[in-house]
């Protein structure tokens, strides 16, 4: 098959048998809601996310510094991942189910209050802006480049190359964010998906086709990449925040 068909049929069947429908939206509310509250606290209550050679993903790149701004410095960056995730097809599913109950679960009746409001899906503001997801992706790629620069920097200590627990956490975070970004549906479209004929140029599979296939495989796990990278951003930031507050010091592995 050129694009993977449903892989997790058995797993899904099991989950369906054992988990009541509300588990997924409840998880979304707790995990996503928890992250948003944490992010607001992080952005509003701190102006610095750097600890020696470690930079928190919330504060990178240091846009505020480029303009000589020293308050709410994270604010100048976090809007990019925010709009990227808000317009992500996977998170759309999760928040429409978890926060808006549109619907909370499959074949689960929507709340009675929905009867009084006209449903417009993604046709009206602000959800129609999700159509611009690709632009959020372009910006996210720029941020990702800085994130990799920070990751390299996390291995360069005062006395040269080294590995601390923080370096490992930042590396894992960068890998997961890369997986998330390049398994994106919009990327899958732009890399080759929008073409109808992959062989029309010379009868051979085009480069776009090869990339599209590869991205299709990653894309199957886009939801997993989405959660894993959300938690890794959370962990990386929290780790650096704790280092800055002196709660513990970074163990050097070598």
């Amino acid at each position, binding site marked *: *098959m*050129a*694009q*993977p*068909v*449903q892989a997790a*049929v058995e797993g*899904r069947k099991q989950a*369906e*048998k054992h988990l009541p429908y509300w588990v997924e939206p409840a998880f979304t509310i707790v995990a996503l809601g928890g992250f948003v509250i944490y992010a607001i606290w992080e952005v509003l209550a701190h102006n610095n996310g750097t600890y020696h050679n470690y930079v928190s993903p919330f504060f990178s790149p240091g846009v505020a510094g480029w303009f000589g701004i020293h308050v709410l410095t994270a604010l100048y960056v976090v809007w990019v991942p925010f709009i990227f995730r808000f317009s992500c*097809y996977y998170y*759309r*599913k999760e928040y*429409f*189910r978890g926060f808006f109950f*549109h*619907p909370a679960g*499959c*074949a*689960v*009746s*929507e709340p009675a209050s*929905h009867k009084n409001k006209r*449903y*417009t*899906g*993604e*046709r009206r503001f602000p*959800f*129609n802006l999700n*159509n*611009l*997801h*690709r632009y959020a992706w372009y910006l996210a790629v720029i941020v990702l480049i800085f994130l990799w620069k920070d990751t390299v920097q996390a291995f360069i200590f005062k006395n040269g190359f080294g590995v601390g627990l923080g370096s490992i956490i930042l590396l894992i975070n960068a890998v997961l964010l890369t997986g998330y970004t390049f398994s994106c*549906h*919009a990327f*899958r*479209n*732009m890399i080759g*998906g*929008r*073409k*109808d*004929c*992959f*062989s*029309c140029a010379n*009868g051979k*599979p085009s480069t776009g*086709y090869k990339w599209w296939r590869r991205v299709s495989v990653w*894309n*199957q796990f886009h939801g997993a990449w989405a959660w894993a990278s959300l938690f890794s951003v959370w962990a990386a930031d929290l780790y650096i925040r704790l280092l800055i507050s002196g709660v513990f010091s970074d163990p050097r592995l070598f």
Partner: protein
Amino acid sequence: MSEEIVLSIYRGDADGGQEVEYSVPLTPGMVVLDAVHQVQAHQAQDLAVRWNCKAAHCGSCSAEINGRPKLLCKTRLDDYVGQTVHILPMQTFPIIKDLVSDVSWNYEVAKKIPAFKPATAVPFRMQQFDVDRVQEFHHCIECFLCQDVCHVLRDHDAKDEYFGPRFMVKIAEYEMHPREGGDRIPLLAHEAGLNMCNVTKCCTEVCPQHIRITDNAIIPLKERVADQYWDPLRALFRRKKESPTNQSV
């Protein structure tokens, strides 16, 4: 004595009705449709159920089993041992009688979709890897379970605003065909109501053919609508000329 299983089957029509309980002996490998046939043969000869193939191929026996849209002939009863099996007709379409609902709206929608229009003279040769993608969509058996579960149709009854997931699959099948010459993107952006879908993926969850409706049909189509209607940079660089295979530019 063999184990008995209790079925609670909806009996009624447009004027109303209720669930009625029937007990049938459970035999190994039995599917829900077998049990319904048992009831029909021995306890309620007037019980209406639509079916044809009993092999998950014709898409006729769609219903809701314990609240899940499913094919009666593909659902094993041993999944429900120890429970009462509630069997209802699909909720999104008007009921005719008992388990039979009127799915004719779907056939009206199908008529609104322009048929395949080859861009080059037939017969043509295609590479297998070019058609793999649309072949996934050919697996559709038109059971309309995805239409039944889609909250746009089910909860909001927006049948005049959205064609539903089955027809997004149909349109994707044409649009992504390597030799297709038509353009259904304006249809998707307007009358077909693609953006009524909020990608919540219930259609994918219930599809008995395991077509990845949302990931492989709906989202790529949304991206194509965005290519044509939402992307200012692409609009700037869009070349007006028709390419032979009518690929989006």
